[in-house]
C-alpha cells in the first residue's frame, strides 16, 4: 500500500514521468567517462598495430583490464542513454519509435556484455 498522496507521487516528475532521473544519470556517465576515456585512449593508440603478445600482456594487467571494463560498461550505458534521447527527439510515429528504442536497449546491453566477456577472457584465459 502506498501511503503517499497522488500529488506526492507525481510531484517533480513532469510529462516524461521520470523527472530528471534520465538527465542526471546521463551526467553521471559523462563525468565518469572523462577520466576513463583518457586512461584508455592513449595506451590504446599505442597498442594499435603492435604485436599480439605485447598487447595481450598489456590488457591481462589488472589495472588496464579494470579500466577497459569500466570504460566498456560506462560507454554502453552512456550510448544507451544518448541514443534514446536522439530517437525520442527525431523519430516520429509510435511504432517506429518504440521499435528503435527497443533495438537500442537490446543492442547496447548486448554489446556491453560482449565487451565485458571479451576483456574477462583476456584476463582469465591467461
Amino acid at each position: 500500500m502506498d501511503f503517499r498522496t497522488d500529488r506526492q507521487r507525481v510531484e517533480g516528475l513532469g510529462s516524461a514521468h521520470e523527472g530528471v532521473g534520465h538527465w542526471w544519470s546521463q551526467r553521471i556517465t559523462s563525468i565518469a567517462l572523462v577520466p576513463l576515456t583518457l586512461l584508455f585512449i592513449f595506451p590504446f593508440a599505442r597498442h594499435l598495430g603492435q604485436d599480439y603478445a605485447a598487447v595481450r600482456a598489456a590488457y591481462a594487467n589488472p589495472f588496464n583490464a579494470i579500466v577497459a571494463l569500466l570504460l566498456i560498461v560506462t560507454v554502453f550505458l552512456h550510448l544507451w542513454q544518448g541514443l534514446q534521447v536522439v530517437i525520442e527527439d527525431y523519430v516520429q510515429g509510435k511504432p517506429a519509435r518504440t521499435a528503435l528504442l527497443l533495438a537500442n536497449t537490446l543492442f547496447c546491453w548486448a554489446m556491453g556484455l560482449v565487451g565485458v566477456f571479451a576483456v574477462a577472457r583476456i584476463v582469465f584465459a591467461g
Partner: protein
Amino acid sequence: MADVNPPNRPLSPFMIGPVYRPQITSVMSILHRVTGVGLTLAAILVVWWFLALGAGPADFARVDGFLTSWFGGLILIGSLAAFWYHFCNGIRHLFWDAGYGFDLPTVHKSGKAVIAATAILTVLTLILAF
C-alpha cells in the same frame, strides 16, 4: 491525452537552414549529437578488437590488420576526431549544466576552444598511433 491528436508538427532541426541561419552554436550542438551517434561504430570496433585479442593471434591479426589498413585507418581517424570533439564539447556541456558560461561571448569563445582542442588532440593521438 497527449496521444489523442497525433502531432503533425515538424521535427526538431527544421529551424536550421530554411528558417534560421546556421551559426557556430547550432552547428556545434548538432555536431555533438552526430559525433555521439557516429561513435557507436567506434564502440563496436573497440569491442571487436578486444574479442579478437582474447580469441588468439590469428583473429587479432585480422582485426588489427583491418584497423591499420587505409580504410580502417580512415574510420579510426574519423572516430578519433569524433571522440575528441564529443569529449571536449561534452565538458563544455557539463559546465553549462553546472550553470557556467551561458553568455554569448563565452559560448562563442568556448566553442572555438573546443574546435581547436579537438584538432590538437586528434593530431596528438594520431602521432601516438602511427
